[in-house]
């Protein structure tokens, strides 16, 4: 590609270095690691040293950042685990090169959240062929031959659980809106499909509006403001993503509306705190827990030490683990606050 551009970008970067130094002064203090505080497994006794390679996405979104935070925090809890983290990237080619580097480093196990599951399938296969078991995190590879175990979330069930919760809250009667994420993503289609399937259980509920808000705060504000203008009257809205939900909630406040209930998605700290204080239309959020990264590191360790998982009759680590899309409400929010992310 354009090495020239890169070089100049680097030059500007250097120019900005002074700015960066200043930034360091005004930056936030390091947050306490938002570690998963799920109960420890029975296999925690230190064992053989395991080097785990981690290749994840660029942390430009709350949830994606939480993935890396969770992976690091989990590795720190195990003295027998060394975590080698590649710089986060949303570019398939870059990530493929990073995976190559980790293979060359002869890590024992690889944890990969691919920028694009399809494009990185060859990279996963290459690692598997080299004898390095791959734990595929969330965005799934195209072929089961590219990974040993898949750990990820359940987008379809997010929609189902959001739909059923709304159906129960409305006693099966009313109109609802949907504020979706990025429409070109498979996960958005799955979330919407689940939502529609659940609403089909309630013939008295009609979905009257839908807009895609692209996962960013400003677009969340914009699309929600437009939906509010388009629908002077409705009973509930499901917002796929708590990050864009910050903007969406702001649009609700700006319009001075409080005549409906809102359900979020993913489980951010801001959303859970709003649910806990119960001072907005946000009454619940459906989890898509970033703790899956911690689970992946934990499974990587067990794979490296050739152990199984306790509480299952299996001798080996299962081939797939799907997290549950729990509905977080005021009643159970304290239980889930520790897995929330900023």
């Amino acid at each position: 590609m354009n090495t020239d551009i890169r070089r100049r970008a680097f030059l500007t970067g250097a120019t900005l270095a002074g700015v960066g130094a200043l930034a360091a002064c005004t930056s936030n203090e390091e947050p306490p690691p938002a570690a998963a505080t799920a109960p420890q497994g029975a296999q925690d006794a230190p064992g053989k040293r395991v080097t785990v390679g981690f290749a994840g996405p660029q942390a430009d979104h709350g949830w994606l950042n939480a993935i890396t935070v969770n992976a690091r925090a989990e590795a720190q809890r195990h003295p027998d685990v060394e975590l080698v983290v590649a710089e986060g990237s949303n570019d398939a080619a870059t990530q493929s090169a990073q995976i190559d580097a980790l293979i060359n480093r002869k890590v024992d196990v690889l944890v990969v959240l691919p920028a694009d599951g399809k494009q990185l399938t060859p990279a996963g296969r290459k690692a598997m062929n080299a004898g390095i078991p791959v734990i595929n995190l969330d965005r799934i590879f195209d072929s089961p031959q590219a990974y040993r175990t898949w750990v990820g979330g359940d987008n379809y069930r997010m929609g189902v659980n959001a739909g059923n919760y709304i159906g129960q809250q409305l006693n099966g009667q009313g109109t609802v809106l949907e504020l979706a994420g990025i429409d070109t993503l498979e996960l958005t289609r799955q979330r919407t499909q689940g939502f529609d399937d659940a609403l089909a259980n309630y013939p008295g509920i009609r979905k009257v509006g839908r807009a895609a808000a692209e996962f960013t705060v400003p677009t969340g504000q914009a699309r929600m403001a437009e939906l509010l203008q388009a629908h002077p009257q409705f009973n509930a809205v499901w917002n796929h993503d708590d990050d864009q939900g910050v903007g969406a909630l702001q649009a609700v406040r700006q319009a001075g509306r409080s005549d409906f209930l809102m359900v979020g998605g993913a489980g951010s700290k801001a959303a859970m705190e709003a649910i806990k204080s119960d001072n907005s239309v946000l009454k619940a959020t459906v989890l898509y827990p970033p703790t899956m990264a911690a689970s992946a590191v934990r499974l990587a360790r067990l794979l490296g030490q050739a152990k199984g998982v306790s509480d299952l009759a299996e001798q080996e680590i299962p081939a797939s683990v799907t997290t549950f899309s729990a509905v977080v409400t005021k009643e159970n929010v304290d239980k889930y606050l520790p897995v929330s992310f900023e």
Partner: protein
Amino acid sequence: MNADQAVAPEPTRRFSVRLREARNLGLVGVLAVLVLIGALTEPGQFLTTGTVVLVLTQASVIGVITVGMTFVIIGGGIDLSVGAVVALATVWATTRSTQQFGIGGIVFTAVAVGVGCGLVSGLLIAYGRLVAFIGTLAMLASARGLAIQLSQGRTQTVTSSNQALVDLGYQDSYVLGIPPLVLIFAAVAIVGWLVLNRTTFGRRTYAIGGNLEAARLAGINVKLHTCLLYVLSGLCCGIASVMLIILTSSGTSGNGNLYELDAIAAVIIGGTLLSGGRGTLVGSVLGVLVFTVISVLFTLNNLPTAVQQLAKGVIIVLAVLVQRRASLYSSERTTR
């Protein structure tokens, strides 16, 4: 001295001014058609004060950025970094330590970051002789990276002690039914119009974009002026960042995503030549409004985002085709 008059003799100038106005009338026509579509498809919801307020509010942030972009493009440059600069400014202004200084601290930081980034781009382009496209592309990459680093990927919300800033977005703050954000947009647009059309700075901007060599020979400090154009664009980004914080109550590194393309598109369909030298601020503002009305129209009618992007694309092509026809009639001026 009047550089504009040195470049174009009176009769041609009046003719091209008339053409520019005609093009703006065309945009007003497009707006009218869109409003008509809205009125026909959603009779109950579209023709309301609520929709007008919504359109103007949604247009305000990108509108302010477009004002700066208009200056840069008329001056023969381009600023690809606006979206990333907005991201960096909102992130920096909402860090915990910055928020300790209260609303003044937030506003000052956002504007200072915007101006600072504009200055760096300006120096690189004017004095470092980087092509504008490359210089601002580098700024795009650096500013977005710094924003991610600074926020550590988090959404930083405005603390309750600074709630008064966010309150400016609520209905209680409306002045005579007009949201403060719309008033800021109007103020920036009016000041921008005055600077572009009634000051030496404005005339020099046209002169530099029209013919850089002639402008230099006419005694204009081309380097300084070019640098100032990017500072101006950065200033607009800073103001827009404050508005975005009011609108969303937060700063994130994902803010301002693709704003550069929206702003450039609005400037181009507003009749400004991408090669510089000619354009109007009124056209740019109308361009922003056209895009915002399309967005509102699509959500109102429950249409998918993909079709909306297609509609945007068609409108950009149509506008540029009309523009090319218009510039054929006044080619004497551009070839001079």
